[in-house]
């Protein structure tokens, strides 16, 4: 493969389905290390499903997903678990553990996977919360904070273990423009300074152009990937009407 940079994740010929209901077919793309890949597409086209299969929660019908050139689906289970632990994930609904406070949510992964002292773990948790602007809400339960705050807490938890790859499912939905911009800046900072790789599902055009180095566009009718590339260059590629509508916010 001729690539400027090494591909950290590569997806080949992926077919996904729920029972007998096909969601996506023959999806192939690569994510470069230290880049931000944006997954775009209309509502219900299978973006969350694609993300779930990439983090090993949904076994695909066909196809290969490899991470650091190791096939995630065929490696031994314990090794697979080890590879997957280098991922951080934000679910579309936040998926915070509702029986724990926000701070405990963020500290739990640290408690289970590191041997740091409790005090240090708490410090780390507080630091991650401040990164997403949630300082002062450490002792609130997920049910006591707003939807946008839950999203941000989910982002902080995804970053808890300093993962190499971060998967965000619609991180900026429910966020006000200021926090949304702060999140974009955070993504860009982490990307350039720590070489974190991002796979982000988002509908927000402003943030797509801000953060994306590469993108894939999924089509619910054809049930596959119809375009890929830097969204700025996709703007000039006029054959695909749906993509143009999406990127220019037309109907």
């Amino acid at each position, binding site marked *: 493969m001729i690539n400027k940079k090494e591909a950290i994740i590569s997806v080949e010929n992926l077919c996904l389905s729920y029972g007998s209901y096909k969601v996506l077919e023959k999806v192939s793309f690569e994510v470069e290390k230290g880049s931000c890949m944006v997954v775009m597409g209309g509502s219900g086209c299978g973006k969350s499903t694609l993300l779930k299969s990439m983090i090993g929660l949904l076994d695909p019908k066909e196809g290969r997903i490899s991470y650091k050139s190791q096939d995630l689906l065929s490696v031994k289970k314990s090794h697979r*678990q080890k590879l997957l632990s280098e991922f951080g994930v934000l679910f579309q609904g936040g998926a915070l*553990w509702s029986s724990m406070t926000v701070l405990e949510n963020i500290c739990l992964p640290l408690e289970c996977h590191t041997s740091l002292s409790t005090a240090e773990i708490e410090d780390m948790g507080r630091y991650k919360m401040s990164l997403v602007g949630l300082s002062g809400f450490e002792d609130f339960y997920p049910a006591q904070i707003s939807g946008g705050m839950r999203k941000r807490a989910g982002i902080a938890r995804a970053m808890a273990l300093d993962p190499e790859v971060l998967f965000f499912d619609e991180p900026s939905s429910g966020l006000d423009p200021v926090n949304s911009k702060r999140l974009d800046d955070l993504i860009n900072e982490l990307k350039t300074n720590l070489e974190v790789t991002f796979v982000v599902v988002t509908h927000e055009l402003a943030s797509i152009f801000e953060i994306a180095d590469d993108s894939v566009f999924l089509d619910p009718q054809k049930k596959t990937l119809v375009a890929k590339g830097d969204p700025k260059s996709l703007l000039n590629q006029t054959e695909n009407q749906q993509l143009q509508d999406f990127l220019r916010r037309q109907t």
Partner: protein
Amino acid sequence: MSDDAKGKKTFRQDQPVHPSLHFEISSSQAVCHFTGDWNISTGGDLESVNQTWHSFFDQELAVNQIKLKVHNQVNWDSRLVAFISSKKKVLLKNGIEVDGDFPEKLNKLIDLRSDHVESTKDSSVSRVSGSFLDWWEPFCHRFSSPLNFLGAWIISLLMLPLLKTQMRIRDLITECRQCGAAALPIVTLISFLTGLTMAFVGSVQLEKFNAKIYIADLVCLAMVREMGALMVGIIMAGRTGASFAAEIGSMKLNEELDSLRTFGLSPMEFLVLPRTLALLIMTPMLTIYADIVGMLGGLTVGTQIMDFSVSHYIEQTQASISGMWEVFSGLLKSLAFGLIIGLVGCFKGLHTGNSSVSLGRSVTSTVVTAVTMIVVTDAVFEIIFSALELR
């Protein structure tokens, strides 16, 4: 005057008119006039309207252009919008040109409807032909998934002594408090009343044989061997089993289980193990407690109604227990009941579907399954005990 009353004034006072339409035809151009009140609140069905509509198009096959006219005095809301837009879609599909003469606002609303994304659910689904697989796979799944669950549970239990577990002691303690200490009031009430009731019922029979003091034996043996464990089991099934299923099930709905997995935390070790262990520890303890409280219930009847002295009753109770085996047999049962309740609750929780309906179903089925299994297991224990001549 309040705003409410002012608003009402603007509404028409006269009776609403049932929606209707009629056609006018000239050469190949037809006009459809909408009259009446096309409001959701007008009510009634559109059967006659639909009939007029269809019979017109059945008769006038030559029509290839139609004008839909809504007069300004017609009252309408989204009922009319929905009617017109669905009819328009069919007409266009059949190659009939549709021209609208609508009030400006209505026109805009009709244009808003977009049907460009049609569900493709059926057309592209590839189904395995033949219904055998449709039936066979869920059938196998019904049996294999509880076994898989049990196997995984046993493995994670065996890992426990090796200290290779993700279970947190903190969770175990919280669960123990939740299903043990927090259940004390209800266990007290139920087992006290059970002992009391048995004493009342028994006393009537024993009086006939002039053997009233054996009431102490009756209550003690029944509680220790049977009722203590059974009552605690049923209380725990309704209280703790249901809450396990609801807790884990709603975590599944919320994708919380998925997020546990992404952090490499197994729901089995992290959620199921502390809950089942807590029940295994607490059910026998609660059973001992229920035995004692039940005997106190018997004692109350014995001393207050039947006029035995407290010491006489207690001596008789002590004499009735021939050995510790009587107590242990009850505890053995309660251990089995605790295991059943914990496993059933957690299994049903983990296997909840993706809707709140199925969550409710899981909780109900946890209680039903657990209570049934408890009663059956109880009977099996008694049969085994008597076959081995342990009773």
